[in-house]
């Protein structure tokens, strides 16, 4: 019987992390940014039907970067988690924090126990209502969870986009149009050409809406907000 080669745990984790990072960096970036009325989610996404940004619950949204099939699975599991909780208890008991924890646990377990880690990085964002602050959680392939403020970037060359946003961060909370322009300019940094409204996926969690706060922006709305 052939002996399996010994691989140190450090080496194994490092290999897995490298593998996952490579997969995530291949994709395009997604930005979550706080604005006056809530949170804006903007993604460089040429497909009009395969979404990277989606609604989870009343004031919670999800964004996933990396391998589509994997973050799509996570998205669906998140919706089940939220709907189940809202049905069992009440709608206000569904929180972004509990969902982010669930994702973190799940990704962490897969990362340490499975051969192949999930090649995904996800955002769970919750817009605060009744003067509660917004919450933005960035969860990595290994289950590590980071509580972000004002802005978060995942996927693609996130570091480039992030540093651009840091340099150009507005002094006050931007309104929707300002935030969208800033996000698109930031996404332009990593794209080879200027992004067209058709190649963007934009959605907001607008706390002024009643009931479900999630809303997708149509191409014409995006075009209106961007300088021509």
């Amino acid at each position: 019987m052939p002996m399996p080669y010994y691989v140190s745990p450090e080496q194994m984790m490092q290999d897995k992390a490298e593998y996952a990072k490579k997969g995530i960096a291949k994709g395009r970036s997604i930005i979550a940014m706080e604005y006056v009325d809530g949170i804006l989610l903007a993604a460089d996404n040429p497909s009009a039907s395969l979404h990277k940004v989606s609604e989870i619950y009343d004031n919670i949204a999800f964004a996933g970067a990396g391998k589509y099939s994997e973050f799509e699975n996570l998205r669906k599991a998140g919706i089940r988690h939220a709907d189940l909780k809202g049905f069992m208890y009440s709608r206000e008991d569904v929180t972004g924090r509990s969902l982010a924890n669930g994702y973190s646990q799940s990704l962490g377990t897969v990362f340490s126990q499975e051969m192949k880690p999930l090649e995904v990085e996800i955002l769970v964002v919750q817009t605060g209502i009744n003067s509660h602050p917004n919450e933005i959680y960035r969860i990595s392939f290994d289950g590590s969870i980071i509580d972000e403020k004002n802005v978060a970037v995942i996927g693609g060359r996130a570091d480039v986009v992030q540093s651009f946003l840091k340099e150009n961060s507005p002094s006050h909370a931007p309104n929707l149009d300002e935030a969208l322009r800033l996000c698109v300019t930031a996404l332009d940094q990593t794209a080879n050409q200027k992004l067209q409204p058709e190649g963007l996926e934009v959605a907001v969690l607008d706390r002024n809406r009643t009931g479900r706060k999630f809303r997708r922006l149509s191409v014409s709305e995006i075009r209106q907000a961007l300088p021509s």
Partner: protein
Amino acid sequence: MTNGFDTTMKLPHLPDHDGSSFVEFLSKYYPGMTLGANGSAPNSDPTRTAGAVSVPSATTVLAIKYQQGVIIAGDRRATEGFQIADRRIEKVFKIDEWSAMAIAGAAGPCIEMAKLFQTELEHYEKLEGMPLSCEGKANKLGQMVKANLPMVFQGLVVMPLYVGYDLKRGEGRIFKYDITGGRYEESDYHAIGSGGKDARNTMREHFQRNLSEAEVIKLAVLALYNAADDDVGTGGPDLVRGIYPTAKIVTNQGITDVAEDTLRSVCDAVMAARRSRET
């Protein structure tokens, strides 16, 4: 129901399921929380057959099509035997932006079904990225009524009346059901509950195609008033406490509540007309 794919990726610590139906997800993992969950309980006990258990039951609800869409309205009384269980119960529920349902039967399971149906439609819409069609929603509700069948034999009837605006056809639609989950579409109007027959009689006399919004609200209130006149289980306007029927309208603009002030003034007009005939 699986979608035919064998998804080998399991997500620990998160709900693991295939398919877009919340009801199926719930019945697989949390069977105690679904409708008719206790239906398998022994019903050999003769005291537990139909009608033996006394539960609050909800009574006259109706739906009428009009020019812009459809109106759905209901009275406010719940009875338990010869007692009034609740004077202010809401029997008309918003289900999503384009549909509403009203209920007759045992109040508890009725409200539970409405809540489950709301969650089901929202769940499907979020998972699939698009809402079910009007027809699809009506069929789904039929399946839920059918799932409740075991409870019917224990006296817990849930009877919905469902209205929706069909965006493809550009018209309001009315669906009624039977206890086996059979689904039937009504072309003009319908009413269910203990006072349903009385309400239908009124609507048959006064219904016309293409009523205006004001006319259809008046007809709905009149039908409910007549039902309350003849049926003990249906509550009329309560002038002392200021309780009036509730109504919602579904049009191509979505669903809106009919304002309480509007219903109150229409009720007052109906009663004033009645009073003038009595003297």
